[in-house]
């Protein structure tokens, strides 16, 4: 405790004025939103998420319902839909139907749910695990060699093959697909986090914390992690985009989610056989896939420019 003599003798010294509160800090969100790429990418993504959430109210029917009598309809056809349960109704097929008579628009809209869920879940999972690995490797020098060789080993296995074997082993559920796609992404995140941690741990404010007798876990949590979060978020968007693509690839190859489930990859796989006559079965869901991945990547680029101008190109 500072002894009293100090505080009492302070009254005669002038206190230096500090500049008025900086408004910039509070409006970090506004700065990010001022970036054109963030607005474009984020806007498209919000629309897609809203579309996925509002799927039942967007002129859709059960995406798995089959009606062989109305197979291969062209986009924009108004036709009678006979469900297997026996009831029938008039339906406007915006994107036509596939060979089994399933409404492609409904499948695409519901497919957005799968793609976005998988993209976001994979990003979160890969970031969390990769961050843990990277923090440990970067901060605890004894574990560095072990963890990074493990990561190198993981990186040596082609991601898609790894995912295919995992799905083959544990069955095609959303959870398996998420884990199978996330694991190959972990090394890249871990490497990024490790390199950032290695830079930050040399910063004088970390040394100051050591001199203040701050325990290691607190240094990691309070001084290193908050300063490493920006590149991590940016990497997360790229992981998300990659995951959406890989899920579509797995489905397209028929080694991902069950073929009757509405996913963009499954719709395209189904349309592949009749691509010459009905190219829209592949192209229309393909457009959604491309736009989604592009939006996520543009959002990532915008975040990179505003959060971390030093990272000029994509990591990994």
């Amino acid at each position, binding site marked *: *405790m*500072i002894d009293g*003599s*100090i*505080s009492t*003798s*302070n009254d005669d*010294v*002038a*206190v*230096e*004025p*500090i*500049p008025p*509160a*900086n408004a910039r*800090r509070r409006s970090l969100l506004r700065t990010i939103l001022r970036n054109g790429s963030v607005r474009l990418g984020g806007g498209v993504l919000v629309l897609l998420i809203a579309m996925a959430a509002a799927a039942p109210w967007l002129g859709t029917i059960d995406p798995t319902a089959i009606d062989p009598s109305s197979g291969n309809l062209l986009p924009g056809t108004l036709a009678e839909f006979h469900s297997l349960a026996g009831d029938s109704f008039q339906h406007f097929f915006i994107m036509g139907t596939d060979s089994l008579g399933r409404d492609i628009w409904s499948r695409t809209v519901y497919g957005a749910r799968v793609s976005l869920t998988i993209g976001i879940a994979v990003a979160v999972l890969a970031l969390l695990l990769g961050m843990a690995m990277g923090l440990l490797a970067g901060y605890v020098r004894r574990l560095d060699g072990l963890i990074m060789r493990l990561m190198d080993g993981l990186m040596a296995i082609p991601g898609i093959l790894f995912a295919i074997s995992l799905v083959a082993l544990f069955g095609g559920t959303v959870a398996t697909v998420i884990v199978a796609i996330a694991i190959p992404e972990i090394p890249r995140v871990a490497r990024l986090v490790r390199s950032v941690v290695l830079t930050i741990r040399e*910063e*004088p*404010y970390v*040394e*100051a*914390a*050591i*001199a*203040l*007798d*701050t*325990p290691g876990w607190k240094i990691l949590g*309070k*001084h290193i992690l*908050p*300063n490493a979060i920006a590149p991590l978020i940016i990497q997360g968007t790229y992981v998300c985009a990659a995951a959406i693509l890989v899920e579509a690839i797995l489905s397209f190859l028929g080694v991902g989610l069950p073929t009757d489930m509405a996913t963009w990859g499954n719709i395209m796989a189904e349309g592949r056989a009749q691509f010459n006559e009905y190219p829209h079965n592949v192209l229309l869901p393909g457009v959604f896939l491309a736009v989604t991945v592009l939006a996520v990547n543009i959002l990532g680029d915008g975040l990179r420019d505003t959060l971390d101008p030093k990272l000029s190109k994509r990591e990994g």
Partner: protein
Amino acid sequence: MHNSSLALPVLCVSDLTIPLPPGADRTNAVENISFQVAPGKITCLVGESGSGKSVIANAVMGLLPKPLAQATGSISLLGEELLGAPPSRLRLLRGAAMAMVFQEPMTALNPTMTCGAQVDEMLARHVRMNASERRRKILDIFTRVRLPDPERIYASYPHQLSGGQRQRIVIAIALILKPALLICDEPTTALDVTTQAEILKLILELQRENGTAVLFITHDFGVVAEIADDVVVLRLGEMIEAGPKLQVLRSPREPYTRMLLAAVPALSAPQRAPIAPTAPLLEARKLCKTYQTGSWPGKRRHIHAARDVSLLVRPGETVGIVGESGSGKSTVARCIARLIDPTSGDIHVGGQSVARASHRHLSPLRRQVQVIFQDPYRSLNPRQTVGASIVEGPVNFGVPYRQAWAQAEELMHLVRLSPDALRRYPNEFSGGQRQRISIARALACQPKVLIADEAVSALDVSVQAQILKLLADIQQRLSLGILFITHDLRVASQICDSVIVMHQGEVVEQGSIQDVFFAPRHAYTARLLAAAPGRDFAFGQE
């Protein structure tokens, strides 16, 4: 080349105003600047950070970034107007009629080209000569900038040379075409003091030889005293005072100039009370730090960063460690603070030996010895409020949060900041204010000893004076021991009681300021003292 117009000024800047983009902290980067550089003269632009001195240099060279390109007024080089001149014309003039020497020679040179090739590139663009003639000319200029073994330097890459040698290459590139105007933007700030003295001498010699006009930008009045003919004092983009060197430095008219000159630390005998021979707070005995480079199967090399350093710090005493970069002064400080582990030797704090203690058992040391770092912009966590940074130490030592916060408010008074500052983030403060916050953070642990590792080196001279005064004040109130690491002998002479001179990891001389600085026994100490810029110049005195 352009020596025909001897009577006219080489560079004439009049009414130069360069607006800043909207939203900046002031409307103009520089405002109504007028000065001239006569042939064969050196004009110094001097000012603290943010005074706009580099902006002027870049405006002359036509290197202003796009958002600043709306300059008004006039810049004329040998009668030719440069403002608004087409880029192709400026490209032709750069190098041939005007050239620039930058602050950091490593970034001014291309690391993937040999030094010879870099000079050659510039020469080939401007003159018609064949390769062997160019080579001869380059070797000749390398000799003239006093580079040893020009043939070897020609084939060397920048990283193979020392900082001083690199700066000589940059000067060679600037001067090889004998430009009428040489602009030096803080050319010696990144260099050691003895190297700085050599480079200043070189610039003076070459300038006399060629009759070059020099626009020299610096923040250091010592350097101004060494080389200037005329001085222009700038402050926040405004011209405060201009005139011949002796007039500005000896009888300044403006209060701002007087304040700046008064803040320049003088190399003079200190007026400090003698230290009572009480028990030392901190003692280091035969401290060594050796680094090993290379690993099996390569060759191992041992680098002795510090060798047999012994020192004592008593209550109320300031012990200085001075030396150039690579002398091991910071290594010693970091060993004593146990930020790095000493190879051998002993450290006693409060009677306890802490040199071998494991990191878990360092609390007694951490409590009593605190560190203030050099770079105020990097020593505070940008994502933490100032208050959180300050209470971190006490909370680690078991002080309840509320009590620690109340203490932090008192400390803010002590370092002359408002307690409101505690809820703000570091980016809202200036460099000097941040350094005060760092001091408050160190004091919050109620240490007995402060280690100040170049704590004022990154600050402007007026701020530096304030921080030094604050440290002396706090030292007196709390009878702290201070271990003060600095490369600036003038600063050391002002605040230290005793001093240790280090060179390449070894202590060359150790003793009271009086003995070491005013009757040096070692040749290196004498050389260091002789290199201090402006050491014999009495600032602000007739």
